[in-house]
């Protein structure tokens, strides 16, 4: 058989194994290496809620999908070109994601009777049973060869078997013509201090995996994916959404000159933000791992009162617990950023899976008339800008802000052209200044007539002693149950939030500016909807697209754009929360819902079909 090297535009690889097999790491390494190589990239970790679910079972399968391309890549890909399945359960759970011509690599050693039984196979041929026998199958004794590779390493058997993911990575590197140097560099960096003895064995296994693939007849062709040629010049890095949120907050701290305080309680999938901030004390960030979600937000509110850029991070169930304190921040008119990395709900729901189902809670989930700005991010790297803007709005408008991220964004990663901080705007909180005349008092809720924003007087500021709290007050800060005062204060707090619209960017329509159909989405669905939209435009379809990053208030040109289309298709990963929100504000327009509620991202194909149904 003639071996060919095929140049391809993009390729999707799915690494799957037991949750202890190291598939998240293997996938991340492959992604980082491809990013450094210069490919377009998008990743999607899909892992179980259990740290080590029962070994070998379908429920314990952990997956990591990487989509690399020679052009910009906006989604992790619907279906994969290559599936790497470390055991029968991984094969069973992921076979449905394989393309018609996919290559499937399995560890033959794991396909023994016990493994097949645990995965629930009824016959002794899993490929036939799953209907994938016509794919290119590479059945390799990975465990045996890893053991053989390391038999003289002096490592114990358990440590040796843990290295099988590196053997697999070596095979993948051969098939996709990836250089191994970035992985060597990773191993050196990771282990040089604490476990230098494991560097050489891991390198050896990686090399042996690569060489095995080069020699085995089962691999007919290899592939290359060239670096992106049209990429903008500059320095790039790979970044996850959670990391980008943390860094965006640090950027806002720097631009505002206020120290960052993060009070949070660990919760999947938001924890990585707290972890990331905890690393960066060198930028003055203080992190407090609170005793519970409520303490997380309340310590942040205290820090805000004391003059810090205050942040609390959480996911849906934590947002529920923080509701009352959010109301307090609204009433005390203190800046606060709450980051909600949404996951499948309700209740504990599907903690490691993604969804957009907290929108209603973010918009309405509090007692009383309690408006809070809500903003979102549309890609992992965009989380940096979103977190920066959430902080800027909070600090300049004296209000809590909810930043809705998603598990898909938080855990996903993509290459990012590193911005220059000098291109980011200053953040100027409305600090109270000057001295208070003798006999007069500071009025904490007296507003700027243009923005409706009150002044911020921070404890320590002489003469500005005042009291804030949850009880209704007059503009002077005096307790009041006067009916007219309450009506006034409710209206003023709402108006303050509404006027933020002047400070947010207008919507941008892709495709014709008017027509039959406008497709819209919000948050992390951007990549999938944009891909579907571009494919359909290339096919010559008459359709337009706009994406919302700012939910409350909406961009100022929203109504104008909507009025130019006969029908508006709202795509979201819930049962229609954004569509209902828009209907309430713009009952004159024809909104059509397209929803998915499987705690998984959209597939590009699904969106294309939904759009075509409306054309």
């Amino acid at each position, binding site marked *: 058989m003639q071996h060919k090297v095929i140049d391809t535009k993009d390729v999707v690889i799915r690494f799957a194994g037991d949750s202890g097999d190291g598939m998240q790491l293997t996938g991340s390494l492959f992604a980082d290496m491809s990013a450094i190589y210069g490919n377009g990239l998008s990743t999607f970790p899909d892992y179980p809620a259990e740290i080590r679910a029962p070994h070998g079972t379908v429920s314990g399968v952990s997956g990591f999908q990487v989509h690399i391309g020679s052009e910009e890549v906006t989604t992790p890909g619907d279906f994969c070109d290559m599936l790497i399945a470390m055991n029968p359960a991984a094969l069973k759970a992921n076979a449905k994601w394989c393309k018609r011509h996919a290559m499937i690599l399995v560890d033959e050693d794991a396909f023994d009777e016990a493994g097949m039984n645990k995965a629930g196979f009824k016959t002794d041929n899993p490929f036939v049973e799953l209907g994938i026998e016509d794919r290119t199958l590479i059945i390799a004794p990975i465990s045996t060869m890893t053991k053989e590779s390391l038999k003289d390493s002096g490592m114990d058997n358990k440590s040796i078997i843990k290295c099988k993911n590196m053997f697999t990575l070596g095979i993948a590197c051969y098939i996709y013509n990836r250089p191994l140097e970035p992985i060597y560099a990773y191993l050196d960096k990771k282990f040089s201090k604490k476990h230098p003895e494991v560097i050489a064995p891991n390198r050896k296994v990686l090399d042996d995996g690569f060489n095995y693939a080069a020699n085995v007849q089962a691999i007919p062709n290899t592939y290359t994916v060239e670096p992106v040629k049209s990429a903008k010049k500059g*320095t790039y890095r790979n970044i996850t959404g959670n990391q980008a949120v943390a860094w965006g907050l*640090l950027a806002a701290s720097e631009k505002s000159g206020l120290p960052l305080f993060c009070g949070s309680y660990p919760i999947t999938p938001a924890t990585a933000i707290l972890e990331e901030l905890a690393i960066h004390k060198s930028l003055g960030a203080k992190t407090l791992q609170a005793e519970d979600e409520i*303490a997380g937000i309340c*310590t942040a509110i205290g820090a805000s009162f*004391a003059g810090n850029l205050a942040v609390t991070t959480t996911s849906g169930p934590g947002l529920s617990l923080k509701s009352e304190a959010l109301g307090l921040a609204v009433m005390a008119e203190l800046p606060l950023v709450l980051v909600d990395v949404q996951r499948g709900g309700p209740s504990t729901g599907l903690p490691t899976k993604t969804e957009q189902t907290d929108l209603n809670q973010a918009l309405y989930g509090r007692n009383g008339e309690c408006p809070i700005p809500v903003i979102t991010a549309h890609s992992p790297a965009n989380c940096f800008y979103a977190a920066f803007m959430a902080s800027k709005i909070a600090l300049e408008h004296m209000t809590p802000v909810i930043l809705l991220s998603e598990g898909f964004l938080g855990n996903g990663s993509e290459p990012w052209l*590193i911005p220059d901080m000098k291109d980011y705007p200053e953040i100027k909180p409305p600090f109270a200044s000057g001295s208070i005349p003798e006999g007069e008092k500071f009025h904490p809720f007296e507003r700027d007539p243009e923005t409706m924003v009150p002044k911020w007087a921070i*404890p*320590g500021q002489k003469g500005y002693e005042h009291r804030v709290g949850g*009880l209704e007050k007059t503009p002077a800060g005096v307790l009041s149950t006067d009916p007219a005062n309450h009506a006034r204060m409710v209206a003023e707090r709402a108006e303050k939030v509404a006027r933020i619209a002047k400070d947010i960017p207008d919507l941008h329509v892709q495709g014709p500016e008017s027509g039959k159909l406008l497709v819209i989405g919000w948050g992390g669905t951007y990549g999938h909807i944009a891909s579907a939209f571009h494919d359909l435009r290339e096919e010559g379809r008459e359709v337009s697209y706009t994406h919302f990053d700012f939910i409350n208030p909406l961009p100022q040109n929203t109504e104008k754009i909507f009025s130019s289309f006969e029908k508006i298709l709202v795509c979201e990963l819930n049962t229609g929360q954004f569509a209902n929100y828009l209907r309430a504000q713009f009952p004159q327009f024809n909104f059509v819902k397209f929803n998915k509620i499987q705690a998984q991202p959209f597939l590009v194909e699904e969106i294309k079909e939904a759009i075509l149904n409306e054309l």
Partner: protein
Amino acid sequence: MATLTAKDFKSDQEVRWCPGCGDHAVLAALQRALPKVSQALNYEKERYVVVSGIGCSSRLPYYMDTFGFHSIHGRATAISTGIKVANPWLTVWQACGDGDALAIGGNHFIHAIRRNIDINIMLFNNQIYGLTKGQYSPTSKFGAITKTSPYGTVEHPFEPGSLVLGAKGTFFARSLDVELALNEEIMTAAALHDGCSVMEFLTNCVIFNDGAHKALSDPSVKADHTIVLRDGEKMIFGKNRDKGLIYDGKKIRVVHIGEGGFTEDDILVHDSHANNIGIHMALADMKGPDYPVALGVIRDVKDVTYDDGVRDQVKEVMAKSKIHCVDDLLHSGSTWEVK
């Protein structure tokens, strides 16, 4: 710096507690104590922040002419923690009731003590929910008859002192609302204590739990039913100062001086700074009829504080790290160039 007086700490807001409520006296003591604290520590008035949760006593910040935060039920301790960590220069005083601190806010209360964050918690313990008009609280006596326990409670109360010392608290003091001078003394000691100071004030709710602490506060029995502990002083009490506390090798005992061979020399001397928490727990746990209830500063020991720890760690990492601005951060780790 101009000398501050009690008047400087009084706000222009009308005090709206019921006439006869014990909270008035604690507020007065605080307004008298803070000028002394300010002088001793050279604190400006703008350095004070008074925080509270929800309940009758939590109205206190409105009556203080300082920066104030009247927050939500149970969360005062978390708010105080955030304020102190964000700006350790501020001095934080917190007012909270037994329901606020020990029921809905119990979690924050024990964790602030565990962390030893430098805040001053004034726990107003009237053993009842006052603002909601008379339901039992976590400190109500077993069997207490209230609106939500018409046949008597069937649950044991918390002893705040046990809770504080059980969480390895570094400062615990107890007093009665009416003990103005002692309260000033306790508040000053709390202010000087670097760490989490808990002051339990046994307050009288004149409407819903009148006389709850009568067995301690009534002038006819007070001297025999309470003992005021002061550092370096013998633990002697009683109307005739003829009773004292000894340690018999197993536990603390009350003895009559001059009886059973006990002389004044046998009586324990109070040392709030002693590291041994056992004796402080025993003192805090004392109650009638066998023992007098201990008042005064029971425990006051030094330990590292959370706010110092956070601040020092930030400084330390800043000095070591190569990342000094966000641009440094963005370019840290693996990056690549597109030319």
